[in-house]
């Protein structure tokens, strides 16, 4: 749930989603769920010339399984907290595995 928890804090921030088909979409993150499906608003495709059919699209829903990378806004990420959250997540997993 760490990623879910993390992405929830990025709601209303601009992110760039890189899909497994090399499509890169920049937009405002509107919502995310536990499958890391993503809803973007006010999107624009990074290489617009290559994907003209997407130039009219204003918002998208991206299935979590097709996401390769999410480019994060650095100033919206609390690195120290993320470290701690990662430790907690690891502790949770270890606790469950036991």
């Amino acid at each position, binding site marked *: *749930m*760490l990623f*879910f*928890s*993390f992405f*929830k*804090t990025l*709601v209303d921030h601009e992110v760039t989603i890189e899909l497994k088909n090399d499509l890169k979409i920049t937009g405002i993150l509107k919502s995310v769920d*536990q*499958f890391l499906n993503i809803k973007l608003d006010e999107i624009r495709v990074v290489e617009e010339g290559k994907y003209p059919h997407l130039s009219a699209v204003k918002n998208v829903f991206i299935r979590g399984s097709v996401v390769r990378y999410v480019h994060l806004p650095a100033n919206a990420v*609390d690195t*120290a*907290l*993320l*470290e*701690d*959250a990662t*430790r*907690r*997540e690891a*502790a*949770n*997993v*270890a606790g*469950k*595995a*036991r």
Partner: protein
Amino acid sequence: MSFFGFDPSSNPNSRSHPSTAPGFGAAPDHFAGLSLRPGNDDEDGIDFEDTYDGLGDGLDETDDALNDDTFGDGGAPVGKDFDFAGSTARVAEVLEEEHEIFERNRKPAHKPIIPTVGPTHKTTTTEHQHIPSLAPDMSLWAEPSVPAPQQNRQPQYSAPEHVQNDFPTQAPRAPPSKKFMSLEEVEAEILAQGRQQAHSAQQQLHHVPMPGMQPVQLPPHIPVTQPLGQFHHQGPAHTPSPGAHQQFATPPQEHQNFLMHQLPPHMQHMLQQNQNMLPQHLQAAVHERMLQQQLQEQIRMQPREPLQQQPLPQPQVQPPMARIAQEERAKLLEEESKRLKRNHKIAQLARYNGLMTPQDKNFIQRIQLQQLVSIGNTDDNTAEDFYYIVHSAIRARANPQQPLSQLAQTYLFRNGGRNNGRRDNHMQRMEQQVARAVAAAKAHPKASQLVLEGSLGKISFSNVKTPRPMLNIKRLDSDQKHLAHKSYANADRKTLLAIVETVYDVLLEVEVHERERSKIPPPNPNAPPSEAAQEWEAKRVELADRLYEEMRVLEPIDPASRTRHPFIAILSFGKMKRAIPRIFRHLNPEQRVTILTMIVVHLDVLDVVRHGVYPPGANQLPSAVREEVDMFANNVLPPLLSYVYEAPLSIVVGLLGLLLERVDVILISKTKIGIAFLTMFFSRAELLKQSGRSDEKELQDWQNVYNRFFDMLQGHWMDCFPPSGRFVEDQYVWQFLASMAVGANEIQQRELVGAVKDRVMENVQASKVLPPEIGVQKRENVNLFMRAMGLDVELLG
């Protein structure tokens, strides 16, 4: 008495299909089961536990709780109004009779038109020759090619409607009529219509039911003319057959009589009173229904052909008909345009109404509830959603003006919603269901893993929190213990990092515990602390002690050994340095002073001091070292500083004594961190001395320590400075020199000035050449030192 076995006079409760129950064409009331039986929860089959796990398996075949939705109220006897073929058969004779009479009367006028019709018409006319048996004559409804049962039903419904109604219908197919009216028939009809038009038009204005108020799929609204209303079938499939329509266009007397049997008693009475009024009354009523239906059909089938293009059998009749219809429609549209628009919207929204049965919805609801339960399990929210919760809390603290929007929505909504007075029955039920679902989920926790005998890993089942199944490699517990009890004499990097991680784990535990303080009621200053508060405090102390222990501060110091003390070793890692300020908050003063002592004693082996000495010839430290130094200065120094600034003189003197004994003072005086420590102690001691509250003995001790220090650094003052350069940052050295100079006697001061005179002059010169901001800064730095001795840079000219 009644035509379809419908008895309007009988007790409404014993009617076959109560008007309040949903009809066949009506949209199902999805909450029918809920709202009809508010007190009877367990019978309606949506009890969560019943089907909690293995949703499909749990379905009870014998459970007939929702039969009411499907069949209406179970208490009433089943009526016969669905038996269309039977009902038709009963009246087939009458219909045929009427048909024959009609045929005989109109034969001469009828004949000439026959040739203009297509070949199918022949079969129609030949069928008219014989009188068929009880079976309904398909040709009556002018749809000979279509199979019987479904078509049977349509005319059955539409026949009464069309008794006098010649209003052009908007049948989507509108096949050319096969049963033709003679010219006289049509003229008579038009005349009759013309007379009634004014009347019905008026009626329309007042009585057209508001379509806007009535979504298309709602059960037919029952107007004053209830029986007719019941015959009026509103489903989208309904397209009144034009053949039937014309068949009864001018009904013979028999038919009128026959029709009277269907009417409720009050209508019959009315009819008998005023036989002449019958057509108009009926027509008005039927017309009303037709208009309503027409509107709705227009909504549904907007792109279809307009009304006036409807093919009519007699072309010469069309213009007046079309004109009337058009005028009517224009008027209607004008009046209803707004409503139509809204209706259109509603219709579009309602297009998919009724696609799911209540059972389907229950099923989905259960799945959603299940998800809710697993997400909303508040117990491990902090564990599962740590980043989000803390991040939101930090942000909320950063600007308290901002409403708790996101966090509140996620975590407080459930509590906030409780106090909302406007919740209705469904919401209440929903909440009950959630509560029960949560209870059920807690009662039978799901096994999340499967360990196969002899396998190396476990198979995890996916659930909401871990959507993707993963393979967990079993880890031996002994690994951890082995790690914990290792000797630190030759601890390698990995072991040290593991120690840092354990420190962090405990630290996180402490912090979580700290956050739980808010759950305890605030302490009453007069009363002794509550049991919960005592428990909490005990736990806090225990955790803090564990944290302290994990830092290995108390590992014995072995001055002879060349290996670093474990605490100093782990302090060389950046993440340990960053943890220090957080750790310090949880430690008691005794533990803090121990840590401070530990660092002071090992000051010359601290990584930031060992690496912090400028190598000969180098103007700058390596960037990695600079980073570490900055991190130490920003994270470790402030908590130590804040401690020292409250420490008594005895501790300061003691620490300086330790420094002199155990540490290479010359070495540390060459580094930024070392000088920072020295500055810290000297300035604190000087403050305490000037405050005049210390006793003589302590002051004497302090003077001794000071003198020893001064002598030791004699000849090394210039080494304190970083390699000279215009932009070099040497403020900390001037601060140190100032703190030394304040406590120095006259001889010492002179020595000090003499030692650093070159540097002073250099800085003053540089400050004149450099841009104003940096120049002023440099001047100020030097002045700090000069003023400590009662001098000023200005004196130097």
